[in-house]
């Protein structure tokens, strides 16, 4: 087409966030029109609940950090199993990865919530598993499977000639992997890994469905407590905006890294 589509930098503009903020302000203005005398305005209500909402949002972020850490460590191990020379290990890990990649996140979350004990006794010591820890593990499962695929894909993207060259220099498989292949993989794995982190952060709201008191649960409680219909649209937009402000820069940064690595 003569007038080609927007370039990447143009495509990833912060306009969407501005639009969302504008929508929030507009909804506030509309909600302000009937100023019932004794009641707080919607803006004041949002301000009043902001500390609580922020607390909930920080909890979401905490869950996302923990789930990403667990999922990445498990995923890297699983990724090594995927590229193992031992066929049964490779086959088993393939089944596990396919399973956790194709199962819906919510179902996995239910799976962990219901089937994991709420505490474990190890030699008399009781290790409790509160709901949020279980939710974190449930969210870490799909991350594990996807990180494993990212690792496998990155290892496969390295030219075979490098393996052969390393072999001719008498490197063992382990040495080749650790000293030659993996250092190059880290760079290639970073953009998709960041992309999955953004997806995970947005998925932490699922924890509200299984009873974890994160930002969505708190929002629903606030709307129930206030019982104000004019608060509904502004408060949900407010939560959407919070996630957008956090996730959008990650998406933008991911795109930039991708573009930079693609050039080389």
């Amino acid at each position, binding site marked *: *087409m003569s*007038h*080609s*589509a*927007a370039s990447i930098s*143009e*495509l*990833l*503009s912060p*306009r*969407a*966030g501005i*639009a*969302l903020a504008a929508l929030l302000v507009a909804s506030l203005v509309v909600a302000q029109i009937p100023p019932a005398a004794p009641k707080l305005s919607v803006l004041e209500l949002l301000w009043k609940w902001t500390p609580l909402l922020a607390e909930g949002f920080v909890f979401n972020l905490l869950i996302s950090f923990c789930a990403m850490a667990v999922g990445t460590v498990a995923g890297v191990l699983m990724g090594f199993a995927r590229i193992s020379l031992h066929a049964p290990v490779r086959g088993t890990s393939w089944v596990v990865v*396919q*399973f956790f990649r*194709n*199962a*819906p*996140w*919510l*179902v996995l979350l*239910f*799976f962990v919530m*219901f*089937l994991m004990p709420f505490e474990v006794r190890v030699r008399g010591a009781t290790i409790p598993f509160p709901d949020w820890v279980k939710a974190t593990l449930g969210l870490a499962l799909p991350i594990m499977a996807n990180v494993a695929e990212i690792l496998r894909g990155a290892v496969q993207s390295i030219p075979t000639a490098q393996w052969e060259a390393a072999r001719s220099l008498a490197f063992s498989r382990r040495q080749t992997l650790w000293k030659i292949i993996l250092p190059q993989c880290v760079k290639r794995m970073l953009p998709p890994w960041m992309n999955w982190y*953004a997806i995970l952060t*947005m*998925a*932490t*709201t*699922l924890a*509200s*469905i299984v009873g974890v008191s994160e930002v*969505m649960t708190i*929002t*629903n409680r606030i*709307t129930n407590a206030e019982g104000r*219909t004019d608060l*509904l*649209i502004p*408060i*949900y*937009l407010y*939560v*959407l905006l919070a*996630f*957008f402000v956090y*996730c*959008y820069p990650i*998406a933008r940064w991911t795109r930039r890294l991708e573009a930079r690595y693609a050039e080389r």
Partner: protein
Amino acid sequence: MDDVAAWFLWLYKTTGIKLTIFYDPYDRNRFVVGFFTTLKLSAYCLVLSVVLGAFAAWLAGSRVAAVRRVVDGFVQLFRNTPPLVQLYFFYFAVGPVLPKVDGAPILGSFGWAVVSLTLLETAFAAEIFRAGIEAVPRATIEAAQALGYSRAQIYRKVVLPLAIRVTMPAMNNNLVNLVKTTTLAYAIAVPELVYMSAQVWSEQVNVPEMMVVLLICYVAIVGIINQLMQWLEARLRVPGFGQ
């Protein structure tokens, strides 16, 4: 059918594995309804999002900067906010504001799930189509222009048919994601597969069994989609284009 039911009843009596959906007509009915609601929800969202996504991708190539910006803003908004919050926003915040028809809301929970998931998937489809459109060789478009095709004609008859073929693998991925995302409708009580299964397991107290059935169902649906898309990809293949 009776044999299957008898076998599962026997299984329950001998091992305690309680799969009521195979021998209890009421539970079976609930499960079947859930299964078809999931398929229906996925199908509606798929068709709508492919059509709207193709349209949005076309708008993204518009000569008017304002149009491009609106499309871009829409795509970024829906891609960078949690789908569950979007669903809640539509169902709990936008739904009650809309005027009612004969005392009943315009859209029920199923309707809002279709709206919310369609918009989300449209944002993804638009990006995929745009990538596909960019992959169409310029020379092909110039050839069409030389033959006197209008912009809309070129898009419909030259660019889109080629772009669709390039985007097949990405669309497959997107479709799988869509089916997985329909589980969110559980949160607004759409009677889809997870919701109906939850009804069964909360009454029969057979969470592990239902959980396994549920996971098998989704993995099976995804497997079937993958097979169908591969078949479609092979059918639509144009020699000398793509891989």
